């Protein structure tokens, strides 16, 4: 018997600008999907990234990034989970992030994301948090600020 899923866990809309938005009630699902849509306050390039459980270490990732300047790739080991690069100015942007097996206590945590920033860029990212701890909170961060009105919708997806 198929199981209805893709449940909205929590929706947050910023009433004022913020550099971090936290989800700490994640429910009991297999995967999470986080969709962010809005603008930034920065007048120059910014950068969005995730952290899990507030951890500031042990991430690595790769990015394929396309803009008017051409396509390029990037990657490395970092202190956060990179989502999107060169998120310029106040262009509208969106992020679609899949976080897999977030409750697992015996596997590392992987995510993939797609991001677009107005007419300027499109990117794909893969990364992992090198930890077998269950993810109990997800923090969405930016080096500038997310502007008032930016929405963050977190969904839970169950298995059959």
């Amino acid at each position, binding site marked *: 018997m*198929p*199981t*209805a*899923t*893709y*449940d909205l866990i929590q929706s947050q809309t910023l009433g004022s600008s913020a550099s971090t938005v936290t989800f700490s009630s994640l429910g009991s699902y*297999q*995967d999470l999907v986080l969709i962010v849509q809005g603008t930034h306050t920065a007048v120059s390039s910014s950068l969005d990234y995730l952290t899990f459980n507030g951890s500031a270490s042990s991430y*690595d*990732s*790769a*990015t*394929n*990034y*396309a803009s008017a300047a051409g*396509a*390029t*790739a*990037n*990657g*490395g*080991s970092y202190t956060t989970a990179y989502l999107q690069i060169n998120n310029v100015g106040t262009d509208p942007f969106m992020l679609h992030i*899949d976080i*897999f*097996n977030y409750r697992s206590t015996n*596997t*590392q945590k*992987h*995510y*993939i994301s*797609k991001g677009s920033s107005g007419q300027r860029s499109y990117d*794909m*990212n*893969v*990364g*992992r948090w*090198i930890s077998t701890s269950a993810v109990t909170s997800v923090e969405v961060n930016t080096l500038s600020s997310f502007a008032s009105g930016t929405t963050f919708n977190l969904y839970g*997806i*169950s*298995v*059959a």
Partner: protein
Amino acid sequence: MATGQVSPKVGKIVDTPDRTVTIGTATDSGTGSVASVAFTAGSETTGGPVFYYTATSTPGSFTGTASTSPVTVSGLTAGTAYTFKVKATNATGSGPESSASNSLTLVEPNSYEAIATLSGNGSSDTITFTSIPSTYKHLQIRGVNVVNYGSTDYGNGGLRFNSDTGGNYTNHSIRGYWDGSTGNKQGINYTLGTITYGMIFNCFLNQNQDSVFPTVIDILNYKDTNNRKVARAYGGSTYSTQGARAIIQGASMFWDSTSAITSISLFASNGNWNAKTKFTLYGIKDS
């Protein structure tokens, strides 16, 4: 409440119902348009036999009838708050309405359903979903797959539909690749010609290490018998032994067949799906 009419059923003058109808709880049936309204009915003292009970919504005045509790009310709109009142009706007419129910806002039902989950076993390079319901518009597969590629440092993964192992698939992908041991960073635009599977990922990872690849695959219009089939996937992998490496990939594949898709196989080249691999098949309905 007497009206002095003759009941055709009982053949005598009867009153409208005077029984007390006590409203119960109105609940969401789960369809997005139907509510179930419970009630309890008191004893009749002067009225004739009750034929049915009617529940009426506010707003909209949508109604439903039943001979016993609960009453089903259809035609409602998800997202709108409704209350309901219930009254009894006999051959002469209707009795007094109950008080209003709780306020009920129907929720649009999910159009995304988990159909089946399959895991690897370490000894097979193929995982197959069969018995795919025909009640959806599109399909999606989500999962984290794990392959040990042994002495090679790369492998492909792909889809096969309806057990077709012929050269009926074509593919294109874009990738971002990072090799920490060399510092090499590449954006790759890659076409794999006609082959025997629809490629959904390609790993440039590590010899004799498990390669972990989270992925989401969309299979569009799988029931269509007029058009050839297209699927897309995005996913990637990171690993940091033998020099850190990571790859992110978006892929498109094409199956040169107008047959409806009735089975989906996930195929790993150069290795087997290990026991940590788990794929879940989801169905997406249209309205």
